[in-house]
């Protein structure tokens, strides 16, 4: 009896160990998606843009409800008063100079946001990756001294904005350390590298990352989040066009 029990336990531990050693692509992708889930978020943001030997620092205050709704207001002197609202799958911008709200749509979405390496389209990217991509686990790798899983994502739909993505996921803590975005032809367009993670409310949360638009030579943008508060109720009125104009 004891032997049987021991053997069963051994089998179970081996199985769980095996499970822990080589997750499936779907499991990995699910974990990446899960990291992105929160009810609400509030934070102080900073965007450091380095391009053509010039450096710009933009600060803003941000609010988010899930991944669907977000509101940003810039606070640095040059951009003070510029506000962005993402809601209902659409992106609006308010400019204090013109006092106008503009819907950013069509080809405007691929424009750089505030001169950074991130496009407006990139900020709209909110639906889960698992629902849009077929993952392939390419295997383990080392990135910056950390053991990682390399995941290749191929779009399910031919209309996906980035038909292919590569992900590097930390084997131990599940952080998304790096991802690359590819064009339809397979040429690499953008790179993201995680710089720093904080533990907030018992969960690991990326607070500093760097994005590079590879078509902008030598350009990179560092995103920093400070004073992050998760899951605190935010009034619905924050995510309205009225709030843009106030």
């Amino acid at each position, binding site marked *: 009896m004891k032997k049987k029990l021991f053997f069963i336990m051994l089998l179970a531990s081996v199985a769980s160990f095996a499970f822990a050693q080589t997750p499936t692509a779907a499991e990995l992708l699910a974990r990446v998606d899960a990291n992105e889930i929160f009810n609400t978020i509030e934070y102080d943001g900073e965007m450091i843009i380095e391009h053509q030997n010039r450096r710009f620092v933009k600060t803003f205050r941000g609010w988010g409800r899930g991944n669907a709704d977000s509101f940003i207001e810039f606070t640095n002197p040059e951009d003070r008063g510029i506000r962005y609202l993402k809601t209902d799958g659409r992106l609006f911008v308010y400019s204090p100079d013109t006092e106008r709200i503009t819907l950013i749509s069509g080809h405007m979405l691929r424009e750089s946001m505030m001169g950074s390496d991130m496009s407006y389209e990139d900020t709209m990217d909110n639906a889960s990756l698992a629902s849009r991509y077929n993952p392939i686990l390419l295997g383990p790798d080392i990135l910056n001294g950390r053991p990682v899983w390399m995941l290749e994502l191929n779009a399910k739909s*031919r209309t996906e904005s980035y038909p292919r993505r590569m992900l590097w996921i930390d084997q131990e803590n599940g952080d998304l350390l790096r991802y690359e975005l590819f064009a*339809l*032809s397979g040429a690499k367009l953008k790179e993201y590298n995680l710089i720093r993670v904080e533990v907030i409310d018992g969960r690991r949360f990326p607070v500093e990352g760097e994005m590079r638009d590879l078509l902008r030579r030598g350009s990179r943008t560092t995103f920093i989040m400070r004073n992050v508060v998760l899951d605190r109720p935010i009034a619905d009125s924050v995510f309205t066009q009225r709030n843009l104009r106030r």
Partner: protein
Amino acid sequence: MTLFGIWELKKLALRNLTRHKVKTILTLAAIMVSVALYIVLNSWLGGMAIQSRRNIVNFEIGAAKLQTRLYFERKDEMPSYETFLDWEIFHEALYREGYVSAPRFVFSGTLFSQSGSAPILFHGINPAAEKEVLRYAQYVDFGRFVQDGNFEIALGTVAAERLRVGIPTRPLRLELEELIASVARSQAEADFIRSLYDITPSVRRGGDIFSTEERIVEGNERMILGRNASQADLDRYWNIIAASGRNDVRINAIIDIKAAPEMIRRHRWENELWPALRPEDRVLVAAAYVYEDFMDAYHLVEQDERQLNLILDAMIRAEYAGAIRHVNQLMDVVVVGVINSPAPLPNGNTAFIPLDVLQDRAGMMLEGGVTELIIRERGVPDSRLPGQSESSAVITAALELGLASMGRTLPDELAVFVWQDYMQDYLGYEALQTGAPQVVAGLLLFLSFLVISCTILLAILERTKEIGMMRALGMTDRQMIMLYMLEAGFLGFIGSVLGIILGCIINYPLVKYGIDFSAMGDLMDGGIGFRTTAIFRSMWNVPIIIGAGIAATLLSSFMAFLPTRRAVKKPITDSLRFE
């Protein structure tokens, strides 16, 4: 006395012109110069306009295009998702009925070179068919035109200079040295490249009004590619540059794809989509979606391809953003040629790429689709602007006939649009550009009529007594007015004839030889293009020439009306007493 009787007085009217020969000559000179100026200016502007229109037809658009109606409706946005299939069939059908055509896929994107980037309008073309319809491919300054099957582009000269691709025609010395350092593989190649350039003429002249401070900085002068460089030299130069990778560029574009959204949230359906749909489209769209309570959204249930296309058209007309998806694309291509034609568009921020490489995932996922088929009548000379045989109705009829002979019909969503339909802005601009100088010339013409008016006024004053006498002899007021109008009319007529002769004499060489602006280009250190065909010719506008003469005669005659009318109101006795 009838009007014919007045004609009998023509002798008197003509003799009156000889009373003061100097005054008459001066008046005639004023009319002559203004009529001549009007004719020359009108002819010149007309010639430029005709040439520009020819350039548009021969180098940019052709006579007409076959496109989807929805594309045409939104043509200013260049909706590259609005493609149609089976262009080969329409091409064949048109050919059977005497038309040549060429397929195109037009899309916008950004071109990245080693030096920078620029927004470019790309044309996916079938090189062989394109050459049948348009002529710009004959104007490859450097390199060659594109060929099927290769990821290569021909670039407009403006874009090439901006992106520093290909052979620079007017670099600064330091820029040239930098280029040589990056492309020359040996001292011999470096020397060879240097030998092709010279200091710009203005610098050689020691500077003049065309020189700028930039050009004459010591050690960094503006260089110019020698006009005497042989084709073999240029080919060798091009190959050196190509081998260095300088001509390797990347196209970043967005592939727009029509795709009916699988799901539309109720909020967006009610606030964004439904109000914007045309009434006739609502039934169609409503039938394709089903509301699901638990998701609070509408789900797509329609499967039929044709219906989905109609639904998408309806959504696009309603400007519903969810109907179009955008896929990022990046293509590595090589610049194989630089275009420098007489027309501005192919020379500008434009590139031409073979259509066949754009068909799949490596390209723009066209899968046989094109945005347009450009059309021209077969065998029509380049000098002839499209006429009735290239009208929308005639081409459509021919296309339908050709398709019928192949057992096919023209789909409803496709239509033929003529070149003018795409050039409203240009035509408006042309009207302004030609209209303004003509107004000026017209004003000058009018001033000459004022001169006539003064001449007649003076004549009436001098002949006050004589006028009184003639009235006393029984000439009615009307006859008197007509006599002086006849005299002024003769002035106008003779002046017009002289003006027409002078205008035609000046216009003749402008029509036959034109003005070669490339010579001016040399003066401006090649500032208007290396091998630009820059000869601008005037034209013969016979209606204008004759019309100017008639108008000048009639208006001159009319100028006598008021002064004479004033004179006949004076009592005869006062006139007779006048000294």
